[in-house]
C-alpha cells in the first residue's frame, strides 16, 4: 500500500508538473520568471492574464472558435461513426477483422504528412478561412479511432437484447433511440471527448486553413502570442494563454469523468 502511494505521487508529479509549471509561470512577473523559486523576491501578478484577455481580438474569441470547431467536428464524427460502427458490429467475423485492421492502420497514420495536400484541397474548394470547414478534415482524421471505439461498444452489447426488441416490434431507428444509444452512451461520451480534444489541440491544419485573426483557433492564437515579439518570448502571457485554454477541457473531463473511464475500459472485461 505504502509503495503504491509513493508510485502514484511520482506518476502524478510526472504528468502534472509541466502544467503546474505553466500555472506558476502565468502568475509570475517577467523578472520573476527568469529567477524561479527565489521565494523572497518573487513577485506575483495577474498582469499576464489581463494582457491575454484584453488583447485584440479578445481571448474568449479564440476559445469560442475552438469550441465551435470542436463541437461541430464531434457531432459530425459521431453522426458518421455511429452508423458505421453499428454496421461493422453486425458484419461477419471475417469482414469485421479486415475492416478493423484497415481502420487501425489509418488511425496510426501521421496526419501531419497530409496537411499540405489538405491545404491544396481547401484552396481548390474555396473553403479556406471558414471555421466550420475545419471540422471536415478533423472528422475525417478522427473517424477511424471513433469507429474502432464505438464498434467494440456495439459488439459488447448482448445480441439477445436487440433481438428481443426486434421481436417486440422496434424498427432500426426505434432500437437505436430506445435501446442502442442509451446502452452505448458511456462509449459515445468517451469517444466524443477524444474527438473534441483532438480538434481543440490541432495546430497545422488550423494554422494553414485560417488566416483571419478573428477566426483562428486556440493553438494558433497561443502560438501567435509566443511569436508576437521579435526580440523576446512573452513567457508570462504565453503561459496564461495555455492555462486559459486548458481550463475548459479540464471542466469537461471532470464533468464526464465517470463516462470516460467506463467507456474506455469497456470491452476490457470480456475480450
Amino acid at each position, binding site marked *: 500500500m505504502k509503495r503504491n502511494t509513493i508510485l502514484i505521487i511520482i506518476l502524478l508529479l510526472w504528468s502534472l508538473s509541466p502544467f503546474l509549471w505553466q500555472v506558476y509561470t502565468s502568475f509570475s512577473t517577467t523578472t520573476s520568471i527568469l529567477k524561479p523559486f527565489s521565494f523572497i523576491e518573487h513577485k506575483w501578478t495577474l498582469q499576464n492574464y489581463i494582457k491575454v484577455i484584453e488583447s485584440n481580438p479578445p481571448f474568449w474569441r479564440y476559445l469560442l472558435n475552438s469550441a465551435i470547431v470542436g463541437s461541430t467536428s464531434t457531432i459530425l464524427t459521431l453522426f458518421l461513426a455511429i452508423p458505421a460502427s453499428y454496421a461493422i458490429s453486425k458484419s461477419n467475423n471475417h469482414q469485421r477483422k479486415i475492416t478493423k485492421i484497415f481502420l487501425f492502420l489509418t488511425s496510426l497514420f501521421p496526419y501531419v504528412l497530409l496537411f499540405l495536400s489538405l491545404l491544396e484541397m481547401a484552396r481548390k474548394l474555396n473553403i479556406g478561412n471558414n471555421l466550420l470547414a475545419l471540422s471536415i478534415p478533423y472528422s475525417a482524421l478522427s473517424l477511424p479511432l471513433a469507429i474502432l471505439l464505438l464498434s467494440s461498444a456495439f459488439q459488447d452489447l448482448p445480441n439477445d*437484447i436487440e433481438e*428481443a426488441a426486434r*421481436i417486440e416490434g*422496434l*424498427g432500426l431507428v426505434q432500437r437505436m433511440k430506445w435501446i442502442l444509444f442509451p446502452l452505448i452512451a458511456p462509449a459515445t461520451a468517451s469517444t466524443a471527448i477524444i474527438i473534441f480534444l483532438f480538434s481543440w489541440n490541432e495546430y497545422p491544419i488550423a494554422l494553414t486553413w485560417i488566416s483571419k485573426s478573428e477566426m483562428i483557433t486556440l493553438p494558433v492564437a497561443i502560438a501567435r502570442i509566443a511569436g508576437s515579439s521579435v526580440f523576446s518570448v512573452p513567457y508570462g502571457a504565453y503561459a496564461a494563454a495555455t492555462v486559459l485554454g486548458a481550463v475548459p477541457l479540464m471542466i469537461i473531463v471532470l464533468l464526464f469523468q465517470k463516462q470516460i473511464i467506463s467507456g474506455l475500459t469497456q470491452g476490457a472485461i470480456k475480450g
Partner: protein
Amino acid sequence: MTLILKGISRSINRNWIIKELNFEVDDGECLAILGPSGCGKSSTLRVIAGLDKPDEGEIYINNIDVTNVSPVARRVGMVFQNYALYPHLSVASNLSLGLKVRGVSKVEQRKRVSSILSVLQLDHLSTRLPAELSGGQRQRVALARALLRDPLVYLLDEPMSNLDAQLREELRPELRRLILNGQQPVLYVTHDQQEAMAMADRIALLNNGFLEQIGTPEELYKNPRSIFTAKFIGRPQINFLKFKDGLITAVRPENIYLSREGYQCKVIYKEWLGMNQLLFLESSLGSIKMICKSDLKVNEKVTVNWDTKDEFQFDTHTGKRLDKAITKSKQIISR
C-alpha cells in the same frame, strides 16, 4: 392457431445447422424441442421467430406463410435464455416499451402493465432495474413481456436453465398457468429431458439438426425408435447390453428386478435417491444400472432379470430400432 414447419433447413458456412424439419404445433399445444447442446434447438426457434432466415422450407402461422415476413409482423412472444431485458430501463418501462412502439395509448399501456405486474406478483418491483432483480424475478419480467406481446405463438428458449433447481420447480406451475394453458401453440426449447417430459404435450427430439423422433413423452419413453432417443429420454440412463454382434439390447434401469434366475452381478456402488436406490452392477454383459428398493450392500452378489417385453433391440451400426417382432430367448443366451 397453429404453427407448421415444412422442410425447414438452415446452414451456416455450408454446414447444416438444421435439416428438413417438419412438424406441426396445434392450438394450445406445447411442443418441447429437446436435444443436446448444438443440436439446432435454438436455431429452430430463431428461424421461427424470424431472427434468422431458413435456406429451405416454409413456416406457417395460422395457415399464413410467414417465411419471408419480418419478426415484428409474425407476432411471436419469445422468452430468451438470459431473459434479454433492457438493462437501462425499469421493470415497468421494460414492459411498456413494446406497447409504446406498437402504438398503444399511454393510459392503456399503464393499465396493461400494471395488470400483468399484479398477475406475476411483481407490483412492488416496477421501478427496479433488471440488475436489481433476482434470477427468478427477471425470468418473470421476461415472461410478462412475452405475455404483453399478445402473440400468436410462444417461443421459450431454455426459459428456466439459468435458475436453480428449486426455483425451477416453483416456476413450473406459473409457466403452465400463464402460457401453456393458453390458446397459442408453445415451443419450449430445453436440453433437460425431465423438464420436457413434465411440461410438454409432445417432444421433438433433435439430433445434429435432424428430427430424431417426435411424439408424446410417453411414446418416446416407451417406444424409442433409435439408440439416441432411448439414451436421451429417461433417467437414470437406459442400459445397453450386447448379447450378439450387430445387435444392442436396451433395458431401462427401472425394469430390472432381483430374481432367482437370470444374470449374476456384483454391486459396484450405489446412489441413495431417497425413495429407492440406484445400483451400479457389474456382470458378464457389462455394467448394468438398476433401480432397487431393498437395501443392498456394496460388493454383494445378486441375480437380476427383466421381462422380454421391456427390452428394446437396436441395430449396432445404424442405431435404429429393429423390428419388435424379433424374438429372442434370454434363457438360451444366458450363461
